[in-house]
């Protein structure tokens, strides 16, 4: 045996940037998080060549899961060409040699910030959501160690009280995005700052969702076919954003989550937030043949 047979030629960087020990830890923690749906698992969270808070948690998951055949899609606010999504996509492709796509249907792995695509994801797709703050209890308990104990005890009383107070004060639950949801009947999680529109897409979904907060060093998951129920009182139903009747001024699509674009005359127009869905709608309108996936929402309604 020689030293040469035991070693590999020197390389400036490991495949997929993270070294073997970092990936092994990620895999273990991902398995743990799948085993206990919605439960936050602490992990080391290595530094990556991007600033904390810019998708480093999602990136570590993606870098661990990809191989050279994994087709990767990255979106931010629903858009593939948003600057940070472009930066992350370029980085993954650069260090892992993965093919990239903007088409939701063709992607094996989708890393996203703040949105779930409008087309239904399938069994063989993985959604990686970037999470700024993994702790749904933060507004009622900023101390992480106390909040951890509260999860262990399923002590969600203060969470309910907060929702109740909002209804009393404002006539409705004022939570915008990041709507707290009960996973598998046990752990309350924040679904990351996706709009309320997107939360029902996680419920009994066919795909695996991994949520990862790099700065806060917590990872959790929604495995396929798992219950995800927004916290609501039985007499005050869950309400998604009032976007069902809005029409995209570019593509003409109706019944999807929209971006509001303020106009000079004081009014607003709207465009579809899922940019690739918008592109497809435009191409269909222009007479191209485009493969359209089934959408979660039909005529602006999420079938129960």
């Amino acid at each position, binding site marked *: 045996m020689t030293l040469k047979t035991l070693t590999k030629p020197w390389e400036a960087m490991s495949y997929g*940037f993270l070294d073997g020990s970092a990936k092994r830890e990620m895999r273990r923690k991902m398995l743990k998080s799948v085993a206990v749906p919605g439960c936050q698992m602490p992990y080391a969270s290595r530094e*990556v060549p991007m600033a*904390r808070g810019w998708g480093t948690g999602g990136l570590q998951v993606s870098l661990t899961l990809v191989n050279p055949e994994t087709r990767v899609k990255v979106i931010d606010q629903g858009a593939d060409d948003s600057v940070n999504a472009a*930066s992350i996509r370029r980085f993954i492709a650069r260090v892992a040699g993965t093919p990239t796509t903007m088409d939701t249907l063709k992607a094996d792995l989708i890393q996203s910030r703040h949105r779930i695509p409008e087309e239904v994801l399938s069994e063989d797709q993985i959604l990686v959501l970037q999470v700024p703050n993994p702790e749904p209890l933060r507004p009622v308990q900023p101390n992480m160690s106390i909040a951890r104990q509260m999860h262990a005890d399923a002590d969600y009383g203060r969470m309910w009280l907060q929702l109740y107070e909002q209804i009393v004060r404002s006539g409705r639950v004022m939570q915008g*995005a990041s709507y707290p949801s009960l996973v598998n009947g046990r752990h309350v999680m924040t679904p990351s*700052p996706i709009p309320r529109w997107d939360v029902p897409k996680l419920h009994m979904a066919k795909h695996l969702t991994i949520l990862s907060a790099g700065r806060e060093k917590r990872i959790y998951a929604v495995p396929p076919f798992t219950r995800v129920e927004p916290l609501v009182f039985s007499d005050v139903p869950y309400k998604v954003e009032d976007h069902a009747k809005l029409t995209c001024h570019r593509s003409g699509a109706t019944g999807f989550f929209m971006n509001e674009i303020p106009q000079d005359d004081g009014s607003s127009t709207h465009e579809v937030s899922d940019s690739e869905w918008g592109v497809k709608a435009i191409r269909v309108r222009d007479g191209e043949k485009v493969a359209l996936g089934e959408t979660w929402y039909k005529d602006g309604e999420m079938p129960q």
Partner: protein
Amino acid sequence: MAYVATRGGERAIEQSERLFRSEMGAIDGARVQQVKESLPYLVDRVMGEASLYDEYLAALALAQTGGELYEAVLLLRAWRTTQPRLCVAAPVEQDRLFTHRRISAAFKDIPGGQVLGPTLDYAHRILATEVLQGETYEPAAVDPAETPTPAYHPGVSAWQAENDLVDLPEPDAVLGNDIPDLTREPLLFPSKRAHTLQSLARAETGGVLALGYAAMRGYGQAHPTVNELRLAEAEIEVKHPDGRSFSAGRVKVSQAEVVDKKGEKLGLGYAATFGWNEVKCIAAATLDLNSPGAEKGSPTEEEFFLYHTEGVESSGFCIHFKLPHYVTFQSSLDAMRDARAKKAAKPKPNVTEPAE
């Protein structure tokens, strides 16, 4: 594809990075060398916050980021995390530190003596403006002492322990790879002692100072007396696979030990870091001194100060607010508008005079 072409994100980010880098121009070995030689304290600070001791890499990170400190530290940390851990050096004992400066505010004189070493403490802070008039600022030469100060000193707290003034912490027998490593494990609370000290060692100087200063001003219970402040070089003693120990070199370290009376004994606060950084060590040791029994959520509570002095995390999160947030904003607007509409639709209650 009109939808996408209107934005052109990829090209924009490429050009914005070029614009940033064009200000610094070409970076070569000479520039890195110059940064290393002319800014040793900045290099030290960056090495401490990155928990990576390599003056050249730190100088390169500073050159590459134009001195954007948070970026420089992130560059080093991202590089460091991919490197294999070849071995863990032997623990450094107090009396084995090659000491350059060692002072105590607790006693007029201490065993081994007060060693001022290099410091600006007593300098008159006057800008050498003549340099800008074309003159050269030539620092006066150092007159060496007749008898050099011994390089090795015991800790002041060792004398205090002998005199039953302080209870020193139990020696930690954990060695090598069994030492908890903050860069490979998450920080959980109550935190392991090793994690606390490591976290303070790599904390952001300004952050530690802000919270340490808050404790000093009165938001902490303990008032620090600097028992000992040391700037030193530590021997990196590692084991060769054949069993022999050898020195892999020396690294600059600084440490502070602060005390306060706690009942009949002294309470101890301690912090150490790579490089020479006195402000950080005194502030960090003050936080450590104040942390036992601190109220949850107070600035001197461990969870509070360790989370909030993490420079890479805090700076990253701060600048992330520049990223688009229009989806979450839209979601909030929707709730706001709906609440307003509900309020407008509700019939106004008849306002009556308050009950007498």
